[in-house]
């Protein structure tokens, strides 16, 4: 499968380099003979060739919805794209229960919360609570983790206070609501406050949520970011990995 090895890639429709992609959108134009062409032009403005407007439907007075397929000429050189990846080995709970005792020798304290307006606790609970996520037990279940789950509807201020109070090693922030980037704002606010108090190097800073990934988290000043489908053991493994580094320092 040659595709795998060339570093210049195009979208793959049903054959190498055909560049076919699918797009759907709504335009505030009335549904009439002209509508289809307007949709086609919109797609062409996206850089698509041989646009095939397969759906033109009236979604309401003055609004028309489109589905189009077309050929995109975009070429990406994947070797030239460098992406911050966070490298660490993922261990099972059993392994960590043993290794942390051996190599860290004390309980790791973590504080977690979903701060600000955001009231979605299921995500952080999935990581921290006993029952965990998808059959993977939460950090509370781990022998060497001491977990403080502050839930939701708490301010970043209080969150930091608590982290200091319990002398946390890691601070876990969950952000689920992303409308108008409220999650970025709130996450940045936490980092700012931490920096202001000169605590940046003190905690392992972890961000999580369905729309979070490492690059985003790092760009916001966190050490790592975990997205949809994260398993507690991944997070535990990462924290262990960082603790080892710290111990070395």
């Amino acid at each position, binding site marked *: 499968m040659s595709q795998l090895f060339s570093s210049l890639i195009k979208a793959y429709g049903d054959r190498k380099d055909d560049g076919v992609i699918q797009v*759907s*959108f*709504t335009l505030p134009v009335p549904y009439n003979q002209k509508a289809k062409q307007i949709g086609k032009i919109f797609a062409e403005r996206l850089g698509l060739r041989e646009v095939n407007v397969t759906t033109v*439907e009236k*979604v*309401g*007075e003055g*609004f028309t*919805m489109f589905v189009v397929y077309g050929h995109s000429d975009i070429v990406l050189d994947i070797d030239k794209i460098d992406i911050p990846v966070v490298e660490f080995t993922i261990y099972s709970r059993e392994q960590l229960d043993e290794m942390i005792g051996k190599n860290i020798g004390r309980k790791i304290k973590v504080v977690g919360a979903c701060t600000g*307006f*955001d*009231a979605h*606790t*299921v995500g952080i*609970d999935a990581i921290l609570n006993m029952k965990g996520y998808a059959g993977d037990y939460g950090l509370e279940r781990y022998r060497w983790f001491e977990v403080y789950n502050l839930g939701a*509807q708490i301010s970043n201020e209080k969150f930091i206070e608590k982290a200091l109070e319990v002398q946390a090693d890691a601070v876990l922030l969950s952000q689920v*609501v*992303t*409308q*108008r980037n*409220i999650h970025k704002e709130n996450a940045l606010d936490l980092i700012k406050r931490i920096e202001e108090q000169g605590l940046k190097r003190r905690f392992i800073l972890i961000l999580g949520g*369905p729309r979070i990934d490492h690059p985003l988290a790092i760009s916001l000043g966190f050490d790592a970011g975990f997205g*949809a489908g994260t398993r507690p053991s991944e997070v535990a493994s990462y924290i262990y990995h960082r603790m080892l580094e710290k111990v070395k320092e």
Partner: protein
Amino acid sequence: MLKVRYDKRLVDSSREFARKIAFDIYQRFIRGFTTDTIERTSLRFLGIEGATSYGHPKVNVVVEKLNKSGSLSAGALNVIANEMAISGVDFNTAVGIIIEGSESSFKAGKEKLDRVKEEIRSLAGKKYNELIKKREQREEFKSLFKPQKTPLKYLIVATGNIYDDVVQAQVAAEAGADIIAVIRSTAQSLLDYVPEGATTEGYGGTYATQENFKIMRAALDDVSKKLERYIYLTNYSSGLCMPEIAYLGSYEGLDILLNDAMYGILFRDINMKRTFCDQFFSRMICAVSKIIINTGEDNYLTTADAVERAHTVLASLLINEAFAKLAGMRSEYMGLGHAFEINPQIENSFLLELSQALLIRQIFKRSPIKYMPPTKHMTGDPFYSNLLDAMFNLASKMSNQHIHLMGMMTEAMHNPLMMDRYESLKNVNYIFNTAADLANQFSIKKDSLLNSRASEVLKRSHDLLKNVLEEGLDRAISIGEFADIKRTPESGKGLTGVFKMSDDYFNPVMEILINKTGGAR
């Protein structure tokens, strides 16, 4: 009609448990208590509206003042009556004086006070009749249209901007929606006041304000006429201002209000004493205004496992029903809510869903059941997620649910785009039509998973209610029986707004409501 088999006697005794559970709460937490939002509601009821120059709602100013002066337990209207009696002014002037903060510190003489109180009583009666008149006018308007086929298609709008909401609501109605719900701005339920005026900014939704209600109601009445199909309007009342929003909603002609006896406690960490009082008062308003309430048990399955904890939904529905009855509501207005939230990766998950949907439909046969689409297990793939909604639509049609919330294939991503809603309607229209009479083709085999699952859920919810009755609902909530969330009677927001009524507590609005609804009997 497809029907699951179960032991009817278990249902009867479960209902009896629920009735007792609710009545026990009434006796210990509701009777003899008032809250600042109940007081504010009473003021609004008597015509106090608008805000101060600082944008502070007048009713809040008044109630805060009286709270500081420690005179709330006698009832806000008591103080106002006193002011009227002393300075010999009318109701509104008296309120004005209190807002200015220049009220006199004297106590008026008994019989003078009584006379004034009579005045206020008759004012309350007048306002009550106005409210009923409004309701009758709306009923008349509704009667111009022929009733829609169930399940009714319920669509949400949530742009944050009431004017964008209007555009989308009208588009949605034209595309086939029967009910429009304006989602509230995130966590408005935590605000201890009702914002004023038309609003254009909100997170994840649009603020519930009297003006926004008015704007949307007018817009929907227009489309109703245009489409010759009555479009229902829904908003949210649960939260710290439950009774106030219930009042504003009924005043502005809303048809449905999210109104749950426990949602605020569990999902917004609002104090339970506060919530119990507020839900009771707000539901009496819904009762007299014939507003359909929607409960939020569907939310339980977003935090608790939908297979393991299904029975807690049924138990909670019976409790919500009991509380509503206690507030004088009729079953025909109890939009009890449940949901399609089982992990779709589970083998035969559709069977478990169907069983549950049939069970709840049958147990609450006279109520306009609200059925919630899959949300928690929706993914970032709209093509796939649209399929979960299709199976949800099928379950809804096969079990003939009443209020059908439209699933959104982009549930896991964002508030629905206009085209997401359109596709949602295409989905429901296709499924409801292509499988219209599917349910009538079959009889369920005696020893089928559908039947055994239904009996299991019923049995477990029966046992749960039994325990709850023994330990008391407050305790049950404290140990996390519902939604896996723990809340204690002393914790949570709004507790400071709860007051034990003094012997001279005066509130003719409450009197009227209780006596018209037969509440608390």
